[in-house]
C-alpha cells in the first residue's frame, strides 16, 4: 500500500512534466495550422517528430554525437583537472586571490565565444579549437566555486584536524576537500553547462564536427523540421548528460 503510494508520488511529477510538453506542442501545432504563427519560421511539431527518423538515418546523428561527446568529455575533464587546483591555489594564497578572483568572475560573464577567430588562427579549424575555447569558457565557475567551497569550510572542522595534528596534505585531502565537495559540485554543474553550450555553439559557428555542425548544415539547407529536430536531440542529450552527473554527485555525496 505504502509502496504503491510512493510510486504514485514519483510518477505524478513525471506525468505532469510530460503532459505539459505534449500540451505545448499541441497548442503550437494548432496555432501554426490556424496561421497564427508563421510556419516558415517555426515548423509544425508533427513535422519535427517525423524528421527525427530522417536525421538519425540520413545525417549520421550518432556519429556526429560521438564527435561532440569526445570534445565534451575532454573539455569537462580538463575543466576539473585545471579548475579545482587553481581554485585550491586561490584559497591557499590570499594575495593571489585578492589579485585575480574578480578578474576570473568577470571572465565568467564575458562572451568568450566571440573570440573564436583568434582561436581559429592559433589552432586552426579543428576539434582543438572547440576544446580549448570550451575549457576557457567553463573554467571560471569551477575556480570560483572551489575557492568559495574551501573558504566556507566550518572552522570547527579545521580545528578538529589541527587537534589531530593533520599535515597540510592530510587536512586538504581528508577535511577541506570533502567538506567543500557540495559547493565544488555546483561549480562543476555550472562549468559543464557552459562547456556544453560552448562545444555545440562553436561547432555551429566554425561549421565543424558534431551536432553543432549538423544544426548549421540543416539550417543552411533551410530544412526547418530537421534543424528543430537536431536542436531537440541536443536538448535530450544534455538532459541525459545532467541526469548522469546528478547520479554521480549523489554517489559521491552520501551525506547529502
Amino acid at each position, binding site marked *: 500500500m505504502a509502496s504503491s503510494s510512493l510510486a504514485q508520488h514519483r510518477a505524478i511529477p513525471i506525468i505532469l512534466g510530460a503532459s505539459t510538453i505534449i500540451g505545448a506542442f499541441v497548442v503550437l501545432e494548432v496555432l501554426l495550422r490556424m496561421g497564427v504563427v508563421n510556419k516558415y519560421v517555426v515548423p509544425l511539431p508533427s513535422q519535427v517528430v517525423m524528421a527525427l527518423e530522417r536525421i538519425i538515418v540520413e545525417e549520421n546523428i550518432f556519429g556526429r554525437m560521438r564527435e561532440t561527446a569526445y570534445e565534451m568529455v575532454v573539455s569537462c575533464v580538463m575543466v576539473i583537472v585545471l579548475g579545482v587546483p587553481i581554485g585550491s591555489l586561490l584559497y591557499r594564497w590570499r594575495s593571489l586571490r585578492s589579485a585575480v578572483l574578480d578578474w576570473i568572475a568577470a571572465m565568467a560573464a564575458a562572451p568568450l565565444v566571440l573570440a573564436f577567430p583568434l582561436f581559429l588562427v592559433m589552432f586552426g579549424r579543428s576539434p582543438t579549437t572547440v576544446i580549448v575555447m570550451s575549457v576557457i569558457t567553463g573554467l571560471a565557475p569551477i575556480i570560483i566555486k572551489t575557492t568559495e567551497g574551501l573558504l566556507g569550510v566550518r572552522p570547527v*572542522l579545521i580545528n*578538529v584536524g*589541527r*587537534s589531530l595534528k593533520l599535515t597540510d596534505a592530510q587536512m586538504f585531502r581528508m577535511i577541506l576537500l570533502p*567538506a567543500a565537495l557540495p559547493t565544488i559540485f555546483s561549480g562543476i554543474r555550472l562549468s559543464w553547462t557552459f562547456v556544453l553550450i560552448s562545444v555545440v555553439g562553436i561547432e555551429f559557428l566554425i561549421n565543424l564536427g558534431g551536432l553543432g555542425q549538423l544544426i548549421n548544415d540543416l539550417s543552411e539547407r533551410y530544412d526547418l523540421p530537421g534543424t528543430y529536430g537536431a536542436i531537440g536531440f541536443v536538448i535530450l542529450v544534455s538532459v541525459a548528460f545532467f541526469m548522469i552527473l546528478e547520479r554521480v554527485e549523489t554517489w559521491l555525496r552520501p*551525506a547529502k
Partner: protein
Amino acid sequence: MTLATSAASDAASGVQPQLVIDRVTKQFGEGPGSVLAIDDMSFNVMPGEFVSVIGPSGCGKSTLFNIIGGLLDEYAGDVLIERERIAGPHKAVGMVFQEESTFPWRNVIDNVAFPLELLGVNKSERLDLAHHFIDLVGLKGFEKLMPSALSGGMRQRVSIARTLVSKPQILLMDEPFAALDEQTRLLLGDKITQIQQDLNQTTLLITHNLTEAVQLSDRIVVMTYRPGKVKRIVDIKLPRPRTSDVVSSDAFGHYVAEIWSDLREEATRGMVDSESAQRGGSRG
C-alpha cells in the same frame, strides 16, 4: 577552598598533576586596542580528576581551551603536560568542541574511527575499537547512519567517541552541551560521568552552565570577567558514582548557590560592559 589550599592538598597527596596551568596570560593585539583575555591564571588537574572552568561569557574560557588544546600557541606562562610545555596540539589532549564537529561525509563508525586511520591502525582493529567507543557513548545500532540522520545530542556523542577512541590522557571539552536542550544536557551529563568513571579519564570541561559544572565535577575553577583570572576553586564533595539525580539534593543546591554568589558579580560586570559597548556602538 582557595587556589593555595588546593595546590597544597595536591602536593600533600604526592600525586603529580597531569595538567599544570601556570601563570598563563594571553593578550590579543598591542597598544590601546589590545584585549587582555587571560591574566595570570594558575591551577592544576590531577590524574582521573574532572575539573570544570566556569565563568561569564567573554571571560576568556574559550581562549584558555584553545591554549590548552594547542590551537593558540603564543601565550605567556606555561601549560605543562608531563613537564612538556604546550606549543601546538599535543597527542595527550583530546578535544571536544562546542560546535557540531562530526564529518557530514562519513557515517558514525567512520567518524569515530577517523583518528585511528591517521595513526595507521589496521581496519579490523580500528573498527573493533570504534564499535567499543560507540557502545560506550550509547550509540550501538547507529554505526552506519550519517550524522545528518542523528539528533544534536547524538552527534555530540559521536564527537566525544571520536575523541576518546585515540585514548587521550586528558579530555578537553569546550561547552559540548551548549546547543542542547536541558533534558538532553542532563542525560548526556550522566553519560559523560559514567565514561569518566569507567575510564578514569582526566577531564577538563569549559562551561558557563552552573548545574552542569556541579553535576559533573570534582573541582570547579571560577573565573572573573575580563581579564579572566582564577577567582576561586571550589571542591565538589558530592558522592560518586554520580548521576543526574544529584541535582535534586540539598548539597547540590548549596554548591550551586555558593558558586552563583561568586559568579553573579562577574556576570553583572560582563553585562554592564556589553551594554555600554552596545550604547557606544549605537551612538557611533
